């Protein structure tokens, strides 16, 4: 189902959480809404689900005005961050719930319901858990049951709120791949909300980066990573180092900086800022550089360095420890970033540094 959102705004009391969102989601697409907490992404998802209503704007799905439709009639599958499974029902009854509450005329027969649930249990690889209760399941298993319950009603649209937010890293990775496979099998239009850029990029066909109630950028993983549309997006991609530079002819210049590996940008000449990720900076010995190593920690796999210039500005650099040049405290080093985003003065900046970890 194609979802078209136009001019959507929403306020909670005095706080405006959505400021004129325009977005089109293609049929069968797997789309990520990516942003820090408070960016409005969950509110947008809840509006599509019919759990919240906007103050202004339109929501049209497959040509139908969904704002005139109560949530019950939209046939959406919604997976909550904390799963919201029914604790007094076993896995089988949880998954069957959406079918058993249908009006008698539309309700499938018990045999059909059983068959649907059996298929889903197999698809979700949880056959052996059918008789368990939610309290007897691990986080990853609950996640699968929640998805099964949402898929049972053959939803026109599948919506997931931070689907892997409550799981640990190893399970996340497995479930991501598995969700991708489930999406390919069911083919339903799917939107998920996340604050984890890696998750968004790995899983989604397209990523919508949101900040402060607005869409900052829409694109594929590569597009957004290579050409962040604003300093906010760059920072959200992990470019937490903001280096003051002078821009000339699309190139960044600063003492102790070798920006030759960066492609030229189209920003205006003059003072600007270069945003860098701590893990994409190479270091070359250079006695003339203002940057000196003032801290050197090893995590075993990585070296964590802090470089300080004579004015006291500090930047973090992470290098893989193996193959790294021998670096000692006090060494003077030149920065050679492999990736970065440049913006001239006056380009929109995010007010606060972004916290990537939740």
């Amino acid at each position, binding site marked *: 189902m194609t979802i078209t959102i136009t001019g959507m705004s929403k306020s909670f009391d005095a706080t405006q959480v959505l400021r004129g969102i325009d977005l089109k989601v293609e049929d069968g697409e797997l789309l990520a809404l990516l942003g820090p907490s408070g960016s409005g992404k969950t509110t947008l998802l809840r509006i599509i689900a019919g*759990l919240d209503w906007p103050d202004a704007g339109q929501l049209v799905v497959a040509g139908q005005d969904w704002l005139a439709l109560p*949530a019950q009639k*939209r046939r959406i599958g919604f997976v*909550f961050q904390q799963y*919201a499974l029914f604790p007094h029902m076993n896995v089988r009854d949880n998954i069957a*719930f959406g079918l058993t*509450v249908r009006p008698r005329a539309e309700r499938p027969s018990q045999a059909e319901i059983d068959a649907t649930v059996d298929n889903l249990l197999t698809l979700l690889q949880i056959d052996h858990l059918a008789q368990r209760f939610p309290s007897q399941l691990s986080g990853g298993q609950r996640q699968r049951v929640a998805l099964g*319950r949402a898929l049972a*009603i053959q939803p026109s649209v599948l919506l997931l709120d931070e689907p892997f937010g409550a799981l640990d890293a190893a399970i996340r990775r497995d479930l991501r791949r598995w969700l991708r496979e489930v999406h390919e099998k069911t083919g339903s239009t799917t939107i998920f909300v996340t604050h984890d850029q890696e998750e968004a990029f790995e899983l989604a066909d397209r990523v919508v980066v949101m900040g402060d109630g607005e869409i900052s950028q829409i694109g594929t993983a590569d597009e957004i990573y290579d050409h962040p549309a604003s300093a906010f997006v760059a920072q959200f991609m992990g470019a937490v180092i903001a280096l003051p530079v002078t821009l000339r002819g699309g190139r960044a210049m600063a003492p102790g900086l070798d920006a030759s590996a960066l492609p030229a940008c189209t920003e205006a000449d003059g003072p600007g800022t270069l945003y860098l990720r701590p893990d994409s900076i190479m270091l070359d010995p250079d006695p003339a550089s203002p940057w000196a190593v003032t801290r050197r920690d090893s995590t075993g796999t990585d070296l964590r360095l802090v470089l300080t210039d004579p004015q006291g500005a500090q930047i973090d650099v992470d290098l893989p420890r193996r193959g790294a040049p021998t670096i000692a405290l006090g060494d003077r080093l030149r920065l050679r970033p492999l990736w970065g985003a440049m913006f001239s003065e006056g380009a929109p900046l995010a007010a606060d540094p972004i916290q990537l970890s939740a």
Partner: protein
Amino acid sequence: MRPQSRLAPRILIGLAVIATLLMIVVPLVYIFAAAFAQGWRVYAQNILDPLTLHAIWLTVLVALIVVPVNIAFGVAAAWAIARFRFPGRSLLMTAIEIPFSISPIIAGICYLLLYGRQGYLGPWLEAHDIQILFALPGIVLVTLFVTSPFVAREVLPLMQAQGSEQEQAAVTLGASGWQIFRRVTLPNIRWALLYGAVLCTARAVGEFGGVSVVSGSIRGQTNTLPLHVELLFNDLNITGAFAAASTLTLIAVVTLLLKSVLEGRAR
């Protein structure tokens, strides 16, 4: 652990046991001892006295009316407070607590002033031949007032802690309001609800102060079991008073057992 530090807990536990024995166990045992002091036959005679039987029936009838009404009110109020933000919400929360802090006899007097012959509604009620005071409606009203917080107070914290996500999930799955209540909300609160209902029953059966003001204690008509115990006692029918009291005690003990079973289930 040093040896002398064991003494203090033992003394404290001993004191607690002695206090419990003196204040709770001995009086309880004494009720039954006194009730059976003149043997089974006299006990049975006292219980089977028509006036005592009527008092038991009236008390049960009041509980049968009051408890379901309070379950409905308690669940509705808890749902409204837990799930919605509306003007007067905190006022409602306070109002539910009021019966806990007001002496039941004050409730009785308020009803007396409101519905009595000289009260605000008295003349109108009299003109329409509606009898509230010194009749069943008055007893039910006062008991309702006194017991109204029990169910709401038990259910509300649970509903607030559980949040509304399960209900929202049910909405997205297409469930109607009634289906959500019956299949999602109610099963989640069932033990707390039963627990509140048990407490409410115990209070409804034992209520004395408020009821004594509005019932008039007419024997065989408006005399509930607690009032009946007092009347028998004032008549110097000690065995009769204790026999009637033993039935009340029995109801209380059963309630207590139910309560501890339900508490276990609720966790």
